[in-house]
């Protein structure tokens, strides 16, 4: 099972639908929309990308999980069983996509499981159903006449961190590489709310630029 994501059609409601469908607690996410900005004012541009579990063919989270709490279903979905999870957090270190979190209520690892409970009864994942622009297409890549197979075959698609050799199953169309692997980063101290020096420098630079334009 795979996802194809049209970057330029993304709406935030995919994230909301996932939260509602899976009762995801506040502060953690199974899928989320990431913003990237490029350029200096006024020549700036914003890019969006949807992040989630990539349901990798060779999933490092499954390899490292000591109790097989993370496992691959016969249909290819990388699912989890929180009854087996000891919350050693090794899967969070193994995932190159930062897609796994520790649920603050169950104290076990959790992530996007392709809405397996919906797939089991013949429904599509919640994020796919809710999106009005069909930004997310889900389906079986092994089926050559499926919509997803045709999209992957007929478009230039990108995957995140292919160099990791995990063979990810989330494909991005019309994506900007920097939005998938950004050069810049934002680090915010949880307690103080202070941003990293790099961000502060970027903000300062922006103000200097504005001042120069004004003069």
């Amino acid at each position, binding site marked *: 099972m795979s996802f194809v994501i049209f970057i330029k059609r993304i709406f935030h409601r995919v994230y909301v639908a996932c939260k509602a469908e899976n009762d995801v607690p506040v502060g953690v996410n199974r899928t989320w929309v990431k913003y*990237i900005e490029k350029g200096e004012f006024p*020549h700036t541009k914003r890019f969006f990308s949807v992040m989630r579990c990539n349901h990798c063919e060779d999933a490092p989270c499954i390899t490292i999980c000591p109790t097989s709490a993370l496992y691959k279903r016969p249909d290819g979905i990388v699912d989890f069983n929180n009854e*087996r*999870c000891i919350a050693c957090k090794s899967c969070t270190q193994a995932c190159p996509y930062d897609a796994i979190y520790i649920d603050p209520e169950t104290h076990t690892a959790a992530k996007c499981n392709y809405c397996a409970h919906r797939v089991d009864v013949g429904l599509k994942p919640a994020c796919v159903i809710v999106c009005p622009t069909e930004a997310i297409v889900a389906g079986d890549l092994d089926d050559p006449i499926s919509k997803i197979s045709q999209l992957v075959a007929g478009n230039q698609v990108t995957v995140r961190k292919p160099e990791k050799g995990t063979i990810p199953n989330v494909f991005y169309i019309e994506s900007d590489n920097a939005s998938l692997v950004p*050069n810049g980063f*934002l680090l915010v101290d949880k307690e103080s709310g202070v941003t990293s020096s790099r961000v502060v420098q970027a903000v300062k630079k922006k103000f200097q630029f504005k001042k120069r334009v004004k003069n």
Partner: protein
Amino acid sequence: MFRPLKKSFNLKKESKIDTDIKQTARRVYDAPNKGILWDWEVAGYIFTKAIAAGIIAFPFLFQMTGLVKVADSVLFTVAISSLLFLGLTGILLIKDLDQPKRFLYVLLRPNWTSWLVKGGYTITAFGGLVTLWCVLKYFDFPIIADLIVWPILILSVLLAIYTAFLFGQAKGRDFWQSPLLSLHMLLHSVVGGSAALLAASMFLPALMPLVPLLKEILIWSLLIQLLSFAAEFLSSHPTEDANKAAHMITHGTFRTAFWGGVVLLGNAIPLLLLIGKLRIAGCSRGLSFWY
């Protein structure tokens, strides 16, 4: 003067602004940072595990190879000390779990591809064999006790380095993919074990026959450790994230802990004190033991 974005993104002819835009990508909104997931307990367990493996390996090796005649009381003491550090390792490992009551699942519901399971069994087997050795020695079965010394030595090496393979499985951490990681872990154990024994020799005179050889081992292991740091941090890493992590250690957030704690206090000063054969060697032992 404002320039329309459409024009600046003309693919046929890339302007300087387009290049700047490409080069200045920054993340402005994202999921909250998950913070440090493996906290001090994991760092602490690496420390106690290194000592548990190193402290027993040298006296047992000296005894078996006949390099130094080691008293039975010394062997017994280091075996008990190793078990104590191993116990601490277990406590820290369990404390790090968010579901500590399920810690036995690692042994009872194992996924054999995981080095966490292989490590768990290594710790269990090592602890079991050392305990058995102590029981056999206590009830005076020296021949059978000697038979299990070599398996203990092999397991102590595995105990020292298995975390490198576990970290290697953590593909989300680029800096841990270093091929030198198992060497670092082994050296960590050699330094930790020899330094702990040298520090203990200040209080246990029975350890004195081991001191000259342990000093040699500590000098060489510190030297190789410093060279391995140089190889790790002076060379370029295969990915940008690994390079960033290396830069954070040597020039960023962790620079004081690295240069001051690890390089200077943990390696360079003890090495100079040992080489200089100064009378205050005890201080160097303490420092090496700590770092």
